[in-house]
């Protein structure tokens, strides 16, 4: 067995912003098909961690994807080999249609694509790629709308669909459920599981405790940039360090 098996593995990932240590020695593993939660209070460094893993901020330490070391690769390279992410703020291409947003990820251009554009024959597989990604997030039929005309909740789902298009080995979801109501959130949890069953591992970051604890196989808790807990969701609910650090109030009162 290889030392670095399939899925995502970070080893002592550390991010410094000037004198501030935003992430300190964060090591975690997400296996294929697994849904892993990363939670923590505001400012704990969750988004920083996603940025570091995907290459949008500089970091120390190592990142492996499917046994391949990828720290040092540019963000778009990591995306092309299947490490995909969504953004808290959606970050869609507002001037493009939903379908085009997804196609960007499926076929990101480049020199070879330029050659195909100019000399090649037109391909007609576009619609399938788009519909498959949209179905996975439950947004069938919105492909022709302009991305900026959707609600924020829908935009985030399109973000997920965009992350699923093309190669997706591991999906990092940065607060995908913010902006969804509780019913939609429940529905979304089901979709997250369904996506994971298709193969990719998922790292889910969210404030919605019931979503994270309900859907995840494993939970990591981050505080002040350090991991303070690793284990199954049930144990997280009762872990005194987590309860104290996360909110200062018992978990049950949050769930209620």
């Amino acid at each position, binding site marked *: 067995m290889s030392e670095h098996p399939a899925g995502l593995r970070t080893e002592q990932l550390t991010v410094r912003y000037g004198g501030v240590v935003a992430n300190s020695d964060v090591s975690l593993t997400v296996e294929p098909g697994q849904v892993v939660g990363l939670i923590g209070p505001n400012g704990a460094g969750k988004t920083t961690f996603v940025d570091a893993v*995907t290459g*949008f901020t500089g970091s120390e330490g190592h990142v492996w994807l499917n046994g391949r070391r990828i720290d040092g690769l*540019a*963000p*778009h*390279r990591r*995306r*092309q080999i299947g490490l*995909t*992410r969504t*953004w808290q703020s959606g*970050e*869609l*291409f*507002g*001037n*493009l*249609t939903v*379908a*085009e*947003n997804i*196609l*960007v*990820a499926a*076929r*990101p*251009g*480049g*020199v070879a*694509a*330029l050659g*195909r*554009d*100019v000399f090649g*024959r*037109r391909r*007609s597989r*576009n*619609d399938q790629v*788009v519909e498959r990604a949209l179905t996975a997030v439950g947004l069938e039929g919105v*492909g*022709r*709308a*302009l991305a900026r005309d959707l609600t924020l909740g829908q935009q985030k789902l399109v973000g997920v669909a*965009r992350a699923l298009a*093309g190669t997706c080995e591991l999906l990092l979801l940065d607060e995908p459920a913010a902006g969804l109501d509780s019913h939609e959130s429940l529905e979304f949890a089901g979709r997250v599981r369904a996506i994971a069953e298709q193969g990719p591992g998922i790292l889910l970051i969210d404030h919605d405790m019931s979503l994270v604890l309900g859907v995840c196989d494993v939970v990591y808790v981050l505080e002040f940039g350090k991991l303070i807990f690793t284990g199954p969701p049930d144990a997280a609910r009762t872990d005194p360090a987590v309860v104290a650090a996360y909110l200062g109030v018992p978990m049950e009162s949050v769930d209620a």
Partner: protein
Amino acid sequence: MTTLIEFAALGLGLGAVYVGLSTGLLLVYRATGIINFAQGAMAMWGAYVFAQLQKDGSLVLPVGTLYFPEPPGVAVSLLIGLVNAFLLGVLAHYLVFRPVRRAPALAQVVVSIGLMVSLQALAVIRFGPNSVKVDSFLPDGTITVGSVELPQRELTMAAIMVVLAAIAWAYLRFTHSGRATRAAAENERGAVLMGFSADRLALIALVMGTLISTVSVVLGGVLTGLSPTNYTLLVVPALAVVLVARLESIWLGVAGSLVLGIFQSELSLLSTRSWWPTWAQSGLDQVLPFLVVMVILFAFGKRLPARGTLQAVRLPDVVLPRFVPWKALALVLVAGVALVVLSPTYRFGLTTSLIVAMLALSYVVITGYLGQISLAQSAFAGAAGFTLSKLTTAWNVPFPLAILVCSLVAAALGMLVALPAFRIRGVQLAIVTIAAALAIERFVFDNYSLTPATGNPIGRPTLFGIDFAVRSGRDLSRLGFSFMVLAVLVLVVLLFVRVARGDTGRAFLAVRANERAAASAGIDVRRTKLIGFGLSAFIAGIAGCLIGYSQGQLSAESFSVVVGLTILAVAYLGGITSFGGALVAGLLGPLGLVYTALHQWFDLGDAYALITGLGLILTAILNPSGIAGETRHQVEWLTGKLRRTRSLPAPREPADAAVAPSAPAETRRMTTGV
């Protein structure tokens, strides 16, 4: 050594002008976040008024002239010149800059370029195209320090400008409204809460900046005389200095200005030495600022303050072009028939329009699709043109191949200029590209050892024994040439449509919308920018070759920075996001069909450039999607109306015929394989 020091002191003269311009630029930027490309042109107006009063006592106004019985004294002339500068600043604030205070960076750049083009054109109209000499009113002697004789004039200039820069600095540092200006640069709402109108602060800064810059140009005129192009473009080295000053510090700006002036002076000394290669004598003064900008950006690129640049270049939406065979055919037929029936003069106008449309299309690629501001398109075109001259005369490369090779050369140059775009965007990229364009113009196009003054003839284009040259005997506008241009345009448009509708066009639009999200979707942003600059320079290069063929020989004037800016103006006027816009731009462009017609009917003279500049300002403020976009909206509205009343379909809009309006719903459906 003595000579070196003396030349350094001489360099202070030019340095003083840079101090005035960079201080003005910084003041305006600090107050509004706008880089005013028209700073030099604005400063030039007051200086011209001063110079003309000194010369013959006539007070030249934008319209009309007043006459003094005899030339007034220096003080009175200076005062009148400054009053003009003051009024110009006030007008520019209310009519030009205030309307775009919250507009995206591109609109701000475009508006200030419009002002620059307009003022330069107005200066040509009112004061003539030639250089106006200014009699020196500064002390002319020398100060002897040890064995070195220092020129009093340059020292005085530098001293005056340093004092004025100090006043600007003190204003920002010590006065209440100056502090509020600095606060507003950080956080506009904060300044408003402090009880200041950001608008009034902007007005003060613009007027003060204009006055200081005007003084520097008045002084500079003593050294060099005044000419419309010269001082308009002197803003480019000043912009380089402003980047060195990190868009912030007046003192860094002063130091940078003086050092740049000194360096240029020393270079002009060194370049006369025998060991200096003759091919490197021309245009050094422009190459230096460009190199400075490049080095600074590579060293500090990411740390430059981001005000006014963070915001993405927000542009009107792109409607993906759709290739509709019968419409395209109709358009080509109309053009073809027009070429046949028109008289030679108009035929040449229409042919030029087709070429300008191609140049405008290169702006559509780079700005409309990729969202990058490039002011160097004319330089790319020129590079191809001059290569064409060498290829066809020295190496006898045959006709269509030569165009391809030259355009590839232009594409390579475009990718080179794109390198800074990895680090910067928005207005800073505009600065780099205009500096690059000016450097290329002065160092290559105006360089007699590279492009002989005797002319750069271009071989006759022939293919399979058919002559496509523009002239033959007394026929100055041959039909064969026009058809060749039309055919090339059709090919270029096909290329554009395929790319725009393909993966590449989509990647361009994604980068334009959000670079971070584009990277997270797997787009190699740098490579995409390289491809975009390369492709747009390639198209510009084709246009440059055709300009070359249309004249039979090349002159640097065809590809000057100012020509490039004028074409940017018409491209923006037409609509920078669509092929239809490029066609409109072609019709309106310099020497194009509309230009020719106006020239035949009225004696338009130099007013054309003025009208273009003013049109650009109005478009940027009122109607950013350009004429074609506006027409499309109206056609869509009309079509909708007619459909509802079950009437006949709306008449076809010629400018947009081949680029039919397609609702977003249709954009992904590949109706045709072009």
